[in-house]
Protein backbone atom coordinates (compact mmCIF):
# COMPACT_ATOMS: atom_id res chain seq x y z
CA UNK A 1 0.00 0.00 0.00
CA UNK A 2 1.23 3.49 0.75
CA UNK A 3 4.80 4.38 1.60
CA UNK A 4 5.38 6.04 4.93
CA UNK A 5 8.21 8.21 3.71
CA UNK A 6 7.60 11.19 1.40
CA UNK A 7 7.51 10.31 -2.28
CA UNK A 8 8.93 12.65 -4.85
CA UNK A 9 6.17 14.27 -6.90
CA UNK A 10 8.31 16.63 -8.97
CA UNK A 11 9.48 16.15 -12.51
CA UNK A 12 11.53 18.47 -14.68
CA UNK A 13 9.55 20.10 -17.49
CA UNK A 14 6.11 19.21 -18.87
CA UNK A 15 4.28 15.97 -18.08
CA UNK A 16 3.92 14.11 -21.38
CA UNK A 17 0.74 12.44 -22.58
CA UNK A 18 2.78 9.25 -23.02
CA UNK A 19 3.68 9.32 -19.32
CA UNK A 20 0.01 9.81 -18.40
CA UNK A 21 -1.11 7.00 -20.72
CA UNK A 22 1.52 4.71 -19.26
CA UNK A 23 0.36 5.52 -15.71
CA UNK A 24 -3.18 4.53 -16.65
CA UNK A 25 -1.98 1.33 -18.34
CA UNK A 26 -0.05 0.28 -15.22
CA UNK A 27 -3.33 0.03 -13.30
CA UNK A 28 -4.81 -2.70 -15.50
CA UNK A 29 -3.29 -5.32 -13.20
CA UNK A 30 -5.16 -3.87 -10.19
CA UNK A 31 -8.47 -5.48 -11.00
CA UNK A 32 -10.19 -4.41 -7.77
CA UNK A 33 -10.26 -0.84 -9.15
CA UNK A 34 -13.56 0.24 -10.67
CA UNK A 35 -12.96 3.96 -11.15
CA UNK A 36 -10.13 6.36 -11.92
CA UNK A 37 -10.33 10.11 -11.63
CA UNK A 38 -7.70 12.24 -13.33
CA UNK A 39 -7.01 15.94 -13.13
CA UNK A 40 -4.63 17.55 -15.59
CA UNK A 41 -3.50 21.12 -15.11
CA UNK A 42 -2.50 22.76 -18.39
CA UNK A 43 -0.57 26.00 -18.80
CA UNK A 44 -2.98 28.58 -20.16
CA UNK A 45 -2.02 31.17 -22.73
CA UNK A 46 -3.42 34.07 -20.66
CA UNK A 47 -3.26 37.60 -21.98
CA UNK A 48 -2.16 40.07 -19.32
CA UNK A 49 -1.88 43.75 -20.26
CA UNK A 50 -1.86 42.76 -23.92
CA UNK A 51 0.97 40.23 -23.54
CA UNK A 52 0.65 36.47 -23.94
CA UNK A 53 1.90 34.01 -21.36
CA UNK A 54 4.25 31.76 -23.33
CA UNK A 55 5.25 29.48 -20.49
CA UNK A 56 5.33 29.12 -16.72
CA UNK A 57 8.55 28.43 -14.87
CA UNK A 58 7.86 26.50 -11.67
CA UNK A 59 10.04 26.44 -8.58
CA UNK A 60 9.50 24.94 -5.13
CA UNK A 61 10.76 24.60 -1.59
CA UNK A 62 11.15 20.91 -2.25
CA UNK A 63 11.70 19.50 1.24
CA UNK A 64 8.71 21.35 2.63
CA UNK A 65 6.53 20.56 -0.38
CA UNK A 66 7.22 16.83 -0.14
CA UNK A 67 6.47 16.78 3.59
CA UNK A 68 3.27 18.72 3.02
CA UNK A 69 2.25 16.42 0.15
CA UNK A 70 2.86 13.44 2.42
CA UNK A 71 0.46 14.93 5.01
CA UNK A 72 -2.15 15.59 2.34
CA UNK A 73 -1.77 12.02 1.06
CA UNK A 74 -2.26 10.56 4.54
CA UNK A 75 -5.32 12.72 5.22
CA UNK A 76 -6.87 11.76 1.88
CA UNK A 77 -6.33 8.04 2.48
CA UNK A 78 -7.95 8.42 5.90
CA UNK A 79 -10.95 10.20 4.47
CA UNK A 80 -11.63 8.26 1.25
CA UNK A 81 -11.67 4.59 0.32
CA UNK A 82 -8.92 4.83 -2.28
CA UNK A 83 -6.98 2.03 -3.90
CA UNK A 84 -4.17 4.35 -4.95
CA UNK A 85 -3.20 7.91 -5.64
CA UNK A 86 -0.47 9.46 -7.77
CA UNK A 87 0.57 13.11 -7.99
CA UNK A 88 3.09 14.68 -10.35
CA UNK A 89 3.98 18.37 -10.58
CA UNK A 90 6.35 19.99 -13.04
CA UNK A 91 9.35 22.10 -12.15
CA UNK A 92 11.18 24.37 -14.57
CA UNK A 93 9.67 25.64 -17.80
CA UNK A 94 6.32 24.34 -19.07
CA UNK A 95 5.00 25.93 -22.27
CA UNK A 96 1.41 27.05 -22.83
CA UNK A 97 -0.64 24.01 -23.82
CA UNK A 98 1.54 21.58 -21.89
CA UNK A 99 0.62 19.73 -18.70
CA UNK A 100 2.12 20.82 -15.38
CA UNK A 101 -0.01 18.92 -12.83
CA UNK A 102 -1.27 15.33 -12.95
CA UNK A 103 -3.41 13.99 -10.11
CA UNK A 104 -4.65 10.41 -10.45
CA UNK A 105 -6.90 8.72 -7.86
CA UNK A 106 -8.38 5.23 -8.10
CA UNK A 107 -11.03 3.42 -6.08
CA UNK A 108 -13.51 0.58 -6.26
CA UNK A 109 -16.43 2.95 -6.86
CA UNK A 110 -16.44 6.31 -8.58
CA UNK A 111 -17.43 8.69 -5.80
CA UNK A 112 -14.32 8.22 -3.68
CA UNK A 113 -11.99 8.67 -6.68
CA UNK A 114 -13.79 11.79 -7.93
CA UNK A 115 -14.10 13.51 -4.53
CA UNK A 116 -10.55 12.66 -3.48
CA UNK A 117 -9.13 13.92 -6.77
CA UNK A 118 -10.88 17.25 -6.40
CA UNK A 119 -9.79 17.68 -2.79
CA UNK A 120 -6.17 16.83 -3.60
CA UNK A 121 -6.05 19.39 -6.41
CA UNK A 122 -7.50 22.10 -4.17
CA UNK A 123 -5.08 21.30 -1.36
CA UNK A 124 -2.08 21.23 -3.72
CA UNK A 125 -2.90 24.71 -4.99
CA UNK A 126 -3.43 26.05 -1.50
CA UNK A 127 -0.84 24.26 0.59
CA UNK A 128 2.20 23.30 -1.51
CA UNK A 129 5.08 25.77 -1.57
CA UNK A 130 5.33 25.94 -5.35
CA UNK A 131 5.60 29.13 -7.38
CA UNK A 132 4.84 29.81 -11.02
CA UNK A 133 6.58 32.59 -12.90
CA UNK A 134 4.55 33.55 -15.98
CA UNK A 135 6.93 34.22 -18.85
CA UNK A 136 5.68 36.55 -21.58
CA UNK A 137 6.58 36.58 -25.25
CA UNK A 138 8.71 39.75 -24.84
CA UNK A 139 10.91 38.10 -22.15
CA UNK A 140 9.23 39.99 -19.28
CA UNK A 141 7.48 38.03 -16.51
CA UNK A 142 5.21 38.19 -13.51
CA UNK A 143 4.64 35.89 -10.55
CA UNK A 144 1.47 33.86 -10.98
CA UNK A 145 -1.38 34.15 -8.48
CA UNK A 146 -3.74 31.29 -7.74
CA UNK A 147 -7.41 32.12 -7.47
Amino acid at each position, binding site marked *: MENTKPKNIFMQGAISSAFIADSIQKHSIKTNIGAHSIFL*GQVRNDVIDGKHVEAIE*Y*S*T*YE*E*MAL*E*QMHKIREAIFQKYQLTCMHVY*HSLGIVKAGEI*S*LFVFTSSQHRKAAIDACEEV*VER*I*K*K*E*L*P*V*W*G*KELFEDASYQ*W*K*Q*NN
Partner: protein
Amino acid sequence: MKQINVLTFGAITEITGSKSFLMNGIDSTQHLVDLLEEKYPRLKTVQYAIAVNKEVIQQNTMLDNDATVAILPPFSGG
Protein backbone atom coordinates in the same frame (compact mmCIF):
# COMPACT_ATOMS: atom_id res chain seq x y z
CA MET B 1 25.91 32.76 19.45
CA LYS B 2 22.61 31.68 18.01
CA GLN B 3 22.53 31.31 14.24
CA ILE B 4 19.59 30.71 11.94
CA ASN B 5 19.27 29.84 8.26
CA VAL B 6 16.97 32.03 6.19
CA LEU B 7 15.56 30.79 2.88
CA THR B 8 13.66 32.92 0.39
CA PHE B 9 11.66 32.00 -2.69
CA GLY B 10 10.12 33.54 -5.81
CA ALA B 11 9.28 37.22 -5.55
CA ILE B 12 10.87 37.43 -2.08
CA THR B 13 14.28 36.38 -3.43
CA GLU B 14 14.08 39.28 -5.86
CA ILE B 15 13.77 41.63 -2.89
CA THR B 16 16.49 40.13 -0.69
CA GLY B 17 18.80 39.32 -3.61
CA SER B 18 19.74 35.99 -2.05
CA LYS B 19 18.05 32.60 -1.83
CA SER B 20 19.70 31.61 1.41
CA PHE B 21 21.70 33.35 4.10
CA LEU B 22 22.68 33.02 7.76
CA MET B 23 21.73 35.47 10.50
CA ASN B 24 23.06 35.74 14.02
CA GLY B 25 21.40 36.66 17.29
CA ILE B 26 17.79 36.31 16.13
CA ASP B 27 15.41 35.30 18.94
CA SER B 28 12.07 35.03 17.22
CA THR B 29 10.30 35.24 13.87
CA GLN B 30 9.04 38.72 14.75
CA HIS B 31 12.59 39.82 15.46
CA LEU B 32 13.64 38.43 12.06
CA VAL B 33 10.74 40.13 10.26
CA ASP B 34 11.54 43.48 11.91
CA LEU B 35 15.18 43.28 10.84
CA LEU B 36 14.41 42.12 7.31
CA GLU B 37 11.72 44.73 6.75
CA GLU B 38 14.12 47.42 7.96
CA LYS B 39 16.84 46.16 5.63
CA TYR B 40 14.49 45.52 2.66
CA PRO B 41 11.59 48.00 2.92
CA ARG B 42 9.90 46.47 -0.16
CA LEU B 43 9.07 43.44 2.00
CA LYS B 44 6.44 45.60 3.73
CA THR B 45 4.60 45.96 0.42
CA VAL B 46 4.25 42.26 -0.43
CA GLN B 47 2.45 39.27 1.06
CA TYR B 48 4.37 36.41 2.53
CA ALA B 49 4.08 33.56 5.01
CA ILE B 50 6.78 32.23 7.30
CA ALA B 51 7.73 28.61 7.85
CA VAL B 52 9.96 27.49 10.71
CA ASN B 53 11.60 24.14 10.03
CA LYS B 54 9.16 23.55 7.15
CA GLU B 55 5.99 24.30 9.16
CA VAL B 56 4.02 27.45 8.36
CA ILE B 57 3.52 29.47 11.54
CA GLN B 58 0.63 31.81 12.32
CA GLN B 59 2.13 33.75 15.19
CA ASN B 60 5.44 34.90 16.59
CA THR B 61 7.64 31.87 17.23
CA MET B 62 10.84 31.57 19.24
CA LEU B 63 13.79 30.29 17.24
CA ASP B 64 16.30 27.68 18.34
CA ASN B 65 19.89 27.67 17.21
CA ASP B 66 20.20 26.37 13.65
CA ALA B 67 16.49 26.83 12.89
CA THR B 68 15.55 27.20 9.22
CA VAL B 69 13.16 30.04 8.54
CA ALA B 70 11.61 30.29 5.08
CA ILE B 71 9.98 33.44 3.74
CA LEU B 72 7.27 32.20 1.36
CA PRO B 73 5.41 34.33 -1.17
CA PRO B 74 1.82 33.26 -1.96
CA PHE B 75 1.78 29.76 -3.43
CA SER B 76 0.91 29.42 -7.10
CA GLY B 77 1.45 25.80 -8.05
CA GLY B 78 -0.76 23.67 -10.26
